[in-house]
């Protein structure tokens, strides 16, 4: 079917590696498909036979519960079979290369591999080695495309259109693949993106992606429609990117007090897990403007859409 007939482009990718590579039209098709899949999760029988007989493998080289579980549920609600590999119990600890591990999984006739890996670019590398589809579930500090898509989906549900919307990404932009996927996706959908955090956690030349940079949250806060608050990665604090947790919370944490300076209908988002009292106060995280749990619900729908579209592309 041509675009003129259905209003949507034809999906042709076996892989989803980044939002940088997707067109606005492809993003719109994923979001539209995800809307239909959200309804499936609200049924009493939360399952459709769309991917019956297909096999999906979760291949996680970094610990993750929510993303892995979200993909697992998404695959199951589409009737695909899913198997889980994690680095601690796989043969990578015995010295096998990524390519060999994946080719062995593929030899078992797996259709799509969902991979999280600490090295940036690993998903793209793998997609070139395999006939199976590869979905990037986070590669180093590069991208986490399904998180970007579910964030856009959640914003669109509340705000209808992203055109001209002011979205602020707050916190550790330097180490955040979520931030990079958000920036690519949001820009394509017409939003105005600001990144805000301590200078040590903002990558150099990030302006080249078309974002505004600020080190002063209180100054940019009043005009924002959406605050996407990134997790402070406490495990990286040995490198001392900021003086102390308490100082970070005072400068960049979203507290009830700070919320008074924001728009009344500002959306509060967080990819989880939340460090309560550091980047986000408990009251705000549980408050009426918070959509953190909606993000989790929408994550399953968006991942169903991505698995459905990529797995049915001819290999």
């Amino acid at each position, binding site marked *: 079917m041509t675009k003129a007939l259905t*209003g*949507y482009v*034809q999906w042709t990718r076996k892989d989803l590696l980044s939002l940088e590579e997707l067109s606005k039209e492809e993003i719109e098709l994923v979001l*539209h*498909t995800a809307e*239909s899949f959200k309804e499936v999760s609200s049924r009493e029988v939360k399952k*459709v036979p*769309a991917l019956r007989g297909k096999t999906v493998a979760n291949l996680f080289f970094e610990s993750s519960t929510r993303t892995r579980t979200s993909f697992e549920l998404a695959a199951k609600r589409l009737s695909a079979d899913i198997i889980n590999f994690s680095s601690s119990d796989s043969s990578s600890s015995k010295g096998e290369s990524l390519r060999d591990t994946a080719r062995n999984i593929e030899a078992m006739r797996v259709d799509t591999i969902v991979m999280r890996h600490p090295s940036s670019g690993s998903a793209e590398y793998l997609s070139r080695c395999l006939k199976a589809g590869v979905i990037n579930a986070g590669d180093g500090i590069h991208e986490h495309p399904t998180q970007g898509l579910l964030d856009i989906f959640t914003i669109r549900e509340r705000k209808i259109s992203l055109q001209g919307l002011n979205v602020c990404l707050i916190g550790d932009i330097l180490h955040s693949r979520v931030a990079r996927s958000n920036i690519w996706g949001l820009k394509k959908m017409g939003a105005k993106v600001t990144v805000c955090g301590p200078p040590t956690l903002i990558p150099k030349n990030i302006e080249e992606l078309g974002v505004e940079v600020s080190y002063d949250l209180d100054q940019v806060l009043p005009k924002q429609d959406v605050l996407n608050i990134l997790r402070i990665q406490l495990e990286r604090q040995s490198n001392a990117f900021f003086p102390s947790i308490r100082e970070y919370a005072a400068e960049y944490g979203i507290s009830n007090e700070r919320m008074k300076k924001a728009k009344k209908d500002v959306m509060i988002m967080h990819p989880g897990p939340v460090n309560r009292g550091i980047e986000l106060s408990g009251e705000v995280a549980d408050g009426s403007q918070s959509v953190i749990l909606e993000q989790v619900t929408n994550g399953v729908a968006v991942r169903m859409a991505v698995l459905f579209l990529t797995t049915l*592309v001819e290999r």
Partner: protein
Amino acid sequence: MTKLLLDAPSLQRALTRMAHEILEKNKGVEGLALIGIQTRGVILAQRLKKAVQEISGHEVPTGILDINLYRDDLTKVSEQPVIRKTVIDFDLDDQTIVLVDDVLYTGRTIRSALDALIDFGRPKKIELAVLIDRGHRELPIRADFVGKNVPTTENEIVHVRLTETDGQEEVVVSEK
């Protein structure tokens, strides 16, 4: 070559007759619900709902079904279907469901729709209403209410055009 099967007035008359038949067969609107199959079946279901209301004075629950996730050829089609919304906000248990579609051909769409409906509940009965029955069934399926039976060959295409989707109101058959 294009041949006109139904013009706007005869299309409307066919729907009115089908509404009467639905009410006659089911002895009224008690426990009756309509479900239209995306895309044109949804519009036809809305029109049947209106006709049933005009005749009986009662509103019947009406839902929308997308059958693409239940297709038997999903992994074989070269062009992926765009998945559209399913909206069924009433209980199907013990109801008489009238499935509505524009054209009945191989019967595979209806097979998918039956599978989908069973996932939503256990209707007392499922009936089928189609505007055009063009023959060439590949499955043991038949319609309970038919707007017009049209003998066709397999290299013909039936086009149902409705104001809401196509800007005009007619049913035509043409060579592929």
